[in-house]
């Protein structure tokens, strides 16, 4: 899993029917010590995350194990909202 920060939302009208009702968020990956990492990802939100929140992101086929994502065309899911990271 990686950590990421919510930086925006995605709206899509024409999409796979199995994605209907799913909230899509734009995420900026961050390192555990809080620095931004290059690139952005779009993920399905299963924990009602909000703007600027730090979240736990699962990628690959494990993303389909998230709540309500079984048999859906999803490869990145948000499965937790981070309270705190302690290094060392």
């Amino acid at each position, binding site marked *: *899993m990686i950590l990421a920060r919510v930086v925006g939302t995605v709206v899509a009208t024409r999409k796979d029917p199995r994605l209907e009702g799913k909230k899509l968020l734009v995420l900026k990956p961050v390192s*555990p010590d809080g620095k931004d990492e290059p690139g952005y990802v779009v993920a399905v939100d299963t*924990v009602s995350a909000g703007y600027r929140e730090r979240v736990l992101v*699962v990628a690959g086929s*494990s993303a389909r194990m998230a709540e309500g994502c079984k048999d859906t065309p999803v490869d990145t899911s948000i499965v*937790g909202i*981070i309270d*705190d990271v*302690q290094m060392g």
Partner: protein
Amino acid sequence: MFLGRVVGRVWATVKHPEYQGVRLLVVQPLTADRQNTGKQIICADSMGAGTGEVIYWVRGREAHLPFLPHEPPADAAIVAIVDTIHLAGQERGEPC
């Protein structure tokens, strides 16, 4: 499977219900001679590993298997704590 070192810990209250009671640790991937390599990642811990310990971890769909019958949506999990690493050319394994 990959070697890594536990370098931190993550707390999350709001999470997938199957994650209840599962520890989340920050892992720095290591090479065989224990040099840091690649980006730090978050692993679900099935072993009770602590900060500073050398572990090995799996990635992909298999990462939920140590937690059966629970199925947390994990793509990386710690599956062992390493005692020694023995490389070719060394007389004996080096304790971690």
